[in-house]
């Protein structure tokens, strides 16, 4: 463990450099450059807020604010995007870096670390913009806002564990990547992101307790829409599941590493 950390510290320059390059690579040949990384999420937030609050005048039951539904929508979609991005990168992490893995010997843990940092960076931009929107429309939830960060951390752990398990499996069975794309679609619509939880029949509402993403996103909505602290007791099982997934990923990786390198 100490050796791994030492090696990662030694390669910190590579990890940070990779994050930077991955960010730059997206906008490398564009005239506006990194401005696009702001324009795109800004457009998304504007669409959800202006269209739903001003044009469709959609209302969230039990919430007075004009922006109630817009904030509800953004709280779910932005964090879901963070989850999907991380798992999506995770499942391709070995395949995409095959060239590096095959040619150079470097601490393999650099890759997931780079992945986390890249995802967090992208999320930070869009979430920062959203926070600015909350402040501008006077919808900022106050101190309870701080409650979001532990939930985000649990979600990162969950997405990382899941992404790494899929990443290892995807090297051996490419179907995993395809299949998960389909699963992700269903998962999105089976999570109360676009619709509120209470429009579901009671049986379905009960089932949502077993959907970790519904619990996590419910916590964000609770904080951002209602200004309440997350319900910590509901989050413990998700944290436990996330840790188990990470351990499973680690075990799978250790056990299949030699074979994985041969398959790449």
């Amino acid at each position, binding site marked *: 463990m100490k050796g791994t950390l030492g090696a990662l510290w*030694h*390669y910190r*320059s*590579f990890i940070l*450099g*990779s994050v930077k*390059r991955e960010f*730059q*690579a997206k906008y*490398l*040949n564009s005239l506006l450059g990194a401005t696009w990384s702001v324009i795109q999420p800004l457009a998304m937030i504007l669409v959800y807020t202006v269209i739903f609050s001003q044009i469709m005048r959609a209302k969230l039951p039990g919430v007075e604010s004009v922006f109630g539904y817009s904030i509800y929508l953004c709280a779910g979609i932005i964090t879901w995007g963070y989850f999907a991005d991380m798992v999506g990168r995770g499942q391709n992490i070995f395949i995409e870096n095959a*060239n*590096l*893995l*095959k*040619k*150079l*010997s*470097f601490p393999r843990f650099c890759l997931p670390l780079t992945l986390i940092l890249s995802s967090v960076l992208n999320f930070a931009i869009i979430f920062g913009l959203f926070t600015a929107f909350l402040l501008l429309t006077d919808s900022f939830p106050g101190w309870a806002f701080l409650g979001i960060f532990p939930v985000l951390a649990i979600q990162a752990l969950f997405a990382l564990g899941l992404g790494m398990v899929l990443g290892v499996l995807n090297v*051996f*069975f490419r179907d995993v990547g395809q299949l998960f794309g389909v699963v992700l679609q269903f998962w999105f619509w089976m999570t109360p992101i676009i619709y509120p939880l209470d429009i579901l029949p009671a049986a379905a509402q009960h089932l949502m307790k077993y959907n970790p993403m519904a619990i996590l996103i419910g916590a964000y909505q609770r904080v951002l829409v209602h200004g309440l602290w997350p319900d910590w007791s509901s989050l413990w099982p998700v944290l436990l599941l996330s840790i188990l997934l990470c351990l499973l990923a680690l075990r799978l990786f250790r056990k299949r*590493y*030699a*074979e994985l*390198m*041969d398959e790449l």
Partner: protein
Amino acid sequence: MGSISVRSLGKAYRQYPTRWSRLAEWLSPLKKPRHHLKWVLQDLNFEISPGESVGIMGVNGAGKSTLLKIITGTTHATTGNVGIQGRVAALLELGMGFHPDFTGRQNAVMGGQLLGYSVSEINALMPHIEEFAEIGAYMDEPVRKYSSGMQVRLAFAVATASRPDVLIVDEALSVGDARFQAKCYQRVASFTREGTTLLLVSHSADDVVKHCERAILIKGGRIEMDGSSRDVTNRYLDELFGKQRSNPTALESSVAEVASEAITMDLDNIDVFAERPGYRMEEYRWGHGGAEILDYRIAAAGELYPSRIDSGCVTDFHVKVLFHEAYESVVAGFLIKSLEGLFLYGINSFLAGAGGQRMSAQAGEVKVFKFSMPLRLNAGDYLVSFGVSSGDPRQELVPLDRRYDSVLLKVGCEKPFWGIADLDSSFEVVRP
């Protein structure tokens, strides 16, 4: 620092009969294996001491690259282990994965980071990298605009920016031009002088002899021979050109035959030309007929069909010709070309023979001619052509049988000089 020890190393890849077998194997609770192992390396044992330079040779598919990948640490061994002391720099294939959209400089930084340097260390090394890579203003252009040679140069410059304890060079260098290759080898040589251990994989026997004192020949995933680079490369060339070593007594007797100067090829009339070592199937054969070149024999330094002839060594070329018709005057010809097709030297029996006397031939007669010359050529591969013609050598000759570029000849040369022909210059300062 820099020692490598390989102990009972083996590598097997898993092969599954169908795509579903792996899934079945993973999921079956009985853990019954459904794959079979394909061994690409087996039972490798060797020690390399710090500062040694060792060539790894073998035909394509022998397992050289797999061995290097295991030593580099990117592939895991199935059995046995590899112990390495010190920092390893590997130039596998094209070095590192450059990102085509980033500039050479950005890629150099990334390459350095991958090797574990910090940004400040890389920035300190950058002037050396730029100077060595010689890509000038292209350094700040995206790598996709680079030629393959430029990429290799940059990759080499980054990988060798500071002296590693172990340097592993794959075929990477074969992409660059000759001058840059020489420069790379110069750097490699200065590293080895300072104590770097070198592992060189090359198909060029000359490179291995020049840069390594020891070589290991791998055949079918096992060590076939481990010894001085000269012995091993000779063996490698024999393997490559299909010379049979399986019957050592036959070889010894043939060497003895050469030594006894009793070179009289059997006077039978079977065409065995194509069965001789060094024969090229791509030969261009033409002529009017009337005579046939049936056989040839090359001998140098007491060895028949040597896998490599030392530059300057007197070499005998025997040609056996069967005449179907009678001719008043026949002429035998010999020609040597470079691989690019440049005519290096040509001669015929009339010009080379003493007194320029004429030869006649009877129908059904078999004659054996011999051209003998010191091959004062630089290291490399050369093409030999034989021919037989009829007619007056001072006037137009009628080609009867010509076998152009029919034999591949390998010349080795220890003496460094530029170009093809060794004109054997001396040098002195006449006036200080």
